[in-house]
């Protein structure tokens, strides 16, 4: 299974990945319409700056995922293929996963009734396309690659 690699040195902090993520998770999948959707689609990746370095951060899809362990309703599942998926219908919005996540990449949705998190763009993966944040990145700071190709 491919994974996301972030090259912090290449990230210029343009936030393009955030926009692309929100559009991908909108109903219309069109930027001009997505901005007017209610509730707003929200993004699952955010560009953060730490000590002068800037980079996009989204779910790491941990093997031993804390969020999956604490989820009382079984909404969060570590799939066989690798990604940690959220079943929105099962989520009760208890926010335990938000607390448990060591990376802070699970967000409460706008209404506070459920959480949202990166699904690696499930629909795109099925079409064998890279996640939206990866294609949106103008500097290729985000790449979607096989683990064996990850350079140190």
């Amino acid at each position, binding site marked *: 299974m491919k994974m996301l690699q972030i090259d912090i040195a290449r990230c210029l902090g343009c*936030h*393009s990945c955030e*926009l692309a993520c929100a*559009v991908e998770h909108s109903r219309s999948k069109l*930027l*001009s319409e997505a*901005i007017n959707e209610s509730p*707003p689609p929200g993004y699952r990746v955010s560009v953060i700056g730490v000590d002068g370095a800037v980079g996009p951060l989204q779910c790491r899809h941990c093997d031993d995922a804390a969020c999956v362990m604490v989820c009382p309703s079984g909404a969060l599942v570590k799939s066989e293929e690798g990604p940690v998926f959220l079943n929105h219908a099962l989520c009760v919005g208890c926010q335990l996963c938000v607390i448990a996540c060591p990376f802070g990449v699970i967000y409460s949705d706008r209404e506070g009734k459920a959480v949202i998190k990166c699904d690696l763009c499930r629909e795109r993966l099925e079409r064998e396309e890279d996640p939206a944040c990866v294609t949106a990145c*103008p500097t290729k700071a985000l790449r979607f690659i096989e683990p064996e190709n990850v350079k140190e």
Partner: protein
Amino acid sequence: MKNTLTTHPEAGPRETLENAFSCGLETAWSRLEEQEPQCGFGTLGLCCRICRMGPCRIDPFGDGPKTGVCGATADIITARNLIRMIAAGSAAHSDHGRDIAHSLLIAARGEATDYTIKDEEKLKNIAGEIGIEVKGKDIRQLAEEVAEKLLAEFGRQDGELLFTKRAPEKRQKLWREEGLIPRGIDREIVEIMHRTLMGVDNDAENLIRQGVRASLGDGWGGSMIATELSDVLFKLPQPIRAQVNLGVLREDEVNIVVHGHEPTLSEIIVAAARDPELLKLAEEKGARGINLAGICCTANEILMRHGIPIAGNFLQQELAITTGAVELMLVDVQCIMPSLGSLCQCFHTKLVSTSPKARFPFAEHIEFKEEEALSIGRRIVRMAIENFPNRKKEKVSIPSKYISGVVAGFTPENVYQFLGGKYRGTYRPLNDAIISGRIRGAAGLVGCNNAQMGHDASHVQMARELIRHDVLVVATGCSAIGLAKAGLMQPESALKQAGRGLREVCEAVGLPPVLHLGSCVDCSRILVTLCNILKEGGLGDDLSDLPVAGAAPEWMSEKAVAIGFYFVASGVQTIISPSFPVEGADGTLELITRGLEKIVGAGFEFEDDPIKGAHLIIKHLDKKRAALKLAPMMYDLAPSALTLKNKDVEKKKR
């Protein structure tokens, strides 16, 4: 290749493009692929780089920042950036006008002997109009006075631009009351730059109002001066037959392509290319002649006045070079891709830049001076001829089947004659046709090509749908070239596609259903035509009463924003695609659509589907017709196949 590469069937040779692609050559389309996906903040207009506390961005989804560092909201940011586009567009058109006025001045003073005053009648008319005594003056003295008075319009500080007097009384009064009449061409542009500086004007409506004022300084000032004085200096165009598209390049002749905007140079090249001495030289080099062809608006200028063929519009500038048959491409200002020079490196083509304002990578610079015009023109033509033997036969591929006939050269002045006959020119037949419901109204199609959209596809589809519904179409700039390529300016074939009412009128007076009115500064001709129609009577007393609309369905240049704004400010509803970069700001969007309508009686509408765009126009014309209590359309039409198809698609979506 991606779908962005789609060109309209008649638009241009796909083969040439594919050929370029397979040779590994870059074109606008391949570079667009590299750029994609393009930045969403920029698309929505939500970034600001005006001061160095930024760059700032507004989060359109509402999770992140709602203002820039200075506190500017999305509305302020988009309004500031939009009117800066107007400033750039107006500056470009107006600087072109200034250059033409300057050429007339030095020609009149005898400092540029290669130029003469070719249209004395028009000069006298203009002189009378702007309050210069005509009697007892020789033509050069008159030309000098006209040039001086119109040049003063650029630096004027107060009062009202002279040509705004051409607008109907009611419109002038509206502009005056709303504080929209431009005081000076340059002043309004400068004021935009001042107001949009960090910490000056921070009210979206106040900003947009200044944008409107500057754009009026373009349409009724800079652009109008460019058009009027070009006619004086190079003669008023007359309807003329010619050919368009890349097929006009010749395999056995020296091909010179003129590209850019100002006719001062291209007119001289036309003369130089007919020089017997140079023709003889061409023969010596093995060519059968010298073939001149144009790209973009300079092409429109020499097409209108001399019937010089057009090689293509904006997106065909690179393709012309990839035919391998162009000896020399000559450029001046505006819409010239900086990629041309490196593309020329792959062929024998020489790229020559001529304006001190515009230099390009890998171009040879031969600076153009009006004082030595013809000798510089000859030097450039000679250079092309001497380059002919370097042409590599194996690299030549002229898409010769891409060629269409066109009738061009319409102006507000000669349309009088067309409609009324030589001895009693009048707009009456047109007004009567509109009043009686044979013609629904008129639409002006203007603007550019945009690599993000199918090349010419929107122009052509929109124009076809309009003429089918009895809407007379007038076109300028790259839109006009696109429509000409599709055969819509050839009366014989085009009239078959027109609705019955429009066809009857066009056949009776001998016009194609789509009229070529010239270059992008010649959008001012559209304004003058509308004033003439209004004066003829029976269609209201302000431009906003007329059943007319404008459209720029494939725009890319800031010049199109300026044109759009002076259309709207003159009372002409205008359809735009792609949308202006303001979609991320509800307030600004509301302001330039419904808000402007309340102030000037017309606004913008954004619609990417050309058929839907055409129907927005039709709906608008019908609304205006109803307000004027005009007769119902004589031959109303069943919904077109295309609209039906669209409706089917919509149903399926549901």
